[in-house]
């Protein structure tokens, strides 16, 4: 007797959800597509937001930027909840082992005094700047339309809480868990003159109503200057003074910024490419906020030992390059 093994291909009845198939055609869709596109209600809302009587739920008029379809702002990282959590868990694993290493070897004790002082004065108050960034990103998430855009902002907002915690932990590592460095950092943030322009900028951004302007002022400008100057240029400067152990604790911030920049750049590019009207709006906001963000970070940078001029030349050139790539 012979047994003949035969394969029989069965076509699935449908490859994906109907609303995804309408957008991309009836073929197997990626998880990102299935989790992100056309999830939000756009018509037949049951309730109106009573706190904003002239708006509807998911109302595109929260920004002056006009898009035919906000779903065009695809996240180049394709983060939906699953991939986002996996990516961050991976990054956090590395970071936790760096912090554990720093703690176990008591590397804080062998830091040069000057580096330790600078860390306390120039780095720790950034935990409050991160808190503000969290709120601003949350605002964008709450007012934007389409889950594609919202989720990117929510993830960024959560990341900022994480960064605030990591910055706080640097303080705890240096003060033996007494938290007195954090109390001093709060004092500096509220009163020290070098931090007031940044606090002023961030609090003004919190008061904006146009969420895309918030995104420009926070994500595109403030984050760019803070991260390329305070987390990168400063890191190089203290490493040169024998503070390389602190640099190990800043790896998370640097990696995160690289990652977030990809989303910022692509969102900006799509919005500018959509219409000249959008381009004019974005240009106007960049003019309004760029110098303020730059000046705010510069005041802080000047209290450190880094080569401020060189750092800002590099940061400006980098920002110009990014904006040019986005179409400005």
């Amino acid at each position, binding site marked *: 007797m012979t047994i003949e093994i035969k*394969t029989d*291909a*069965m076509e699935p009845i449908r490859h994906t959800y109907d609303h995804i198939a309408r957008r991309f055609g009836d073929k*197997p869709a*990626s*998880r*990102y597509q299935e989790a992100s596109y056309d999830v939000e209600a756009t018509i037949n809302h049951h309730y109106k937001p009573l706190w904003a009587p002239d708006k509807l739920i998911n109302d595109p008029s929260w920004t002056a930027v006009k898009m035919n379809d906000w779903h065009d702002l695809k*996240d*180049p*990282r*394709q*983060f939906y909840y699953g991939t986002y959590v996996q*990516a961050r868990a991976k990054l956090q694993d590395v970071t936790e082992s760096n912090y554990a290493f720093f703690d176990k070897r008591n590397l804080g004790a062998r830091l040069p005094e000057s580096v330790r002082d600078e860390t306390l004065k120039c780095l720790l108050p950034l935990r409050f700047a991160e808190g503000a960034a969290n709120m601003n990103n949350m605002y964008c998430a709450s007012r934007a339309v389409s889950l594609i855009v919202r989720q990117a902002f929510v993830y960024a907002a959560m990341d900022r809480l994480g960064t605030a915690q990591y910055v706080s932990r640097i303080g705890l590592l240096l003060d033996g868990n007494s938290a007195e460095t954090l109390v001093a950092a709060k004092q500096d943030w509220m009163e020290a003159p070098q931090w007031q322009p940044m606090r002023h900028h961030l609090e003004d951004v919190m008061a904006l109503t146009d969420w895309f302007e918030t995104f420009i002022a926070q994500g595109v400008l403030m984050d760019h200057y803070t991260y390329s100057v305070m987390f990168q240029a400063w890191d190089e400067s203290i490493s040169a003074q024998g503070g390389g152990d602190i640099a190990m604790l800043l790896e998370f911030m640097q990696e995160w910024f690289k990652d977030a920049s990809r989303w910022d750049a692509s969102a900006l590019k799509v919005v500018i490419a959509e219409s000249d009207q959008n381009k004019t709006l974005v240009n106007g906001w960049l003019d309004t906020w760029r110098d303020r963000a730059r000046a705010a970070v510069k005041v802080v940078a000047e209290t450190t030992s880094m080569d401020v001029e060189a750092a800002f030349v590099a940061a400006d050139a980098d920002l110009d390059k990014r904006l040019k790539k986005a179409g400005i």
Partner: protein
Amino acid sequence: MSKVYIALQDNDESRYIAEAIEEDNDGCSVIHQPAMIRIEREGKLVINRESVEEKMGRDWDVQELHINLVTIGGNVDESDDYFALEWNQ
């Protein structure tokens, strides 16, 4: 000339790779078989790292291809940036 081919397991990762191959290789045929995607083309097939990275939205090492690889037909030419199949003349 005979065809070169590559078959990948049909999963979330290979779908991006297949998409990248489809875009970079004009006139290739993509055949969805049970649990497997087979791609054939007259002459040559190239998988470019950059295209796959763009589709996946993350860094991708060409060697990761082997995780989902079922079979290939053709002489292999590979580097850090691409993986190509072609019958040597």
